[in-house]
């Protein structure tokens, strides 16, 4: 079996296991650590798809900043294990079946639109930083600037919201 396939299954399996663990764990901190695992696995998968820049971003920003923020908040709030309350009948009886339906539908769509013969090959890898950077500053210049504004707003918002006294 070629190396890519093995790597795919390894990292894919890690991702799925991490996700399962996130859902099954009762303490938020364990879920957070599982999520970090998922993100790391995904970064590897991006590399397998040739998206170098994205993989790097994933690790640096997502796993390295966002998840750290999550962990900090969990620690700050001293979040404990979840309570076993259940006050929502809709979530249990409507949500879950429908979620299953959703998955089934996605699966069906995939089955119907199965891309035949499409394989991932190394020669066709895209995703070097340079071209992405160029795109960001030419075709996607406006969204790029807007996201910077967005981040500014988010920073301000977060500071204002979390202050002890306004």
């Amino acid at each position: 079996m070629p190396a890519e396939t093995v790597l795919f299954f390894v990292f894919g399996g890690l991702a799925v296991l991490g996700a399962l663990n996130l859902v099954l764990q009762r303490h938020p901190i364990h879920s957070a650590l599982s999520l970090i695992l998922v993100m790391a696995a995904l970064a590897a998968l991006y590399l397998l798809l040739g998206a170098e820049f994205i993989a790097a971003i994933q690790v640096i920003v997502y796993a390295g900043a966002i998840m750290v923020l999550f962990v900090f908040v969990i620690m700050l709030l001293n979040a404990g294990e979840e309570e076993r309350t259940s006050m929502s009948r809709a979530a249990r009886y409507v949500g879950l079946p429908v979620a299953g339906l959703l998955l089934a539908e996605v699966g069906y769509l995939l089955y119907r639109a199965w891309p035949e013969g499409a394989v991932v090959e190394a020669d066709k890898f895209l995703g070097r930083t340079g071209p992405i950077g160029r795109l960001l500053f030419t075709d996607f210049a406006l969204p790029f600037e807007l996201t910077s504004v967005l981040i500014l707003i988010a920073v301000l918002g977060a500071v204002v919201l979390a202050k002890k006294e306004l």
Partner: protein
Amino acid sequence: MVPLSYYLVLSAILFGLGVVGFLLKRSVITIFMSIELMLNAVNLAFVAFSYHWQALSGQVFVFFVIVVAAAEAAVGLAIIILVFRTRASLNVERVNLMKW
């Protein structure tokens, strides 16, 4: 030589697990994390298709998703802190005052 469809299936599975977590968990932070999981699953699908169509804009979009997720996480967690301060609990079912 991994077929593209495998990536898509993986993305679907991760997304589905995210939805299930979103519905089942009771701690707001965990729910939030399920949402992040869903976003990641979608990112994977984007990158896969970016490769398939040989279009770099797919990865640019992933970039934007990550940026927005970061901003969202910052603000969202700030709100969670506020909620915790007022309701003294991280159980989402205790935050139920906006009802008819």
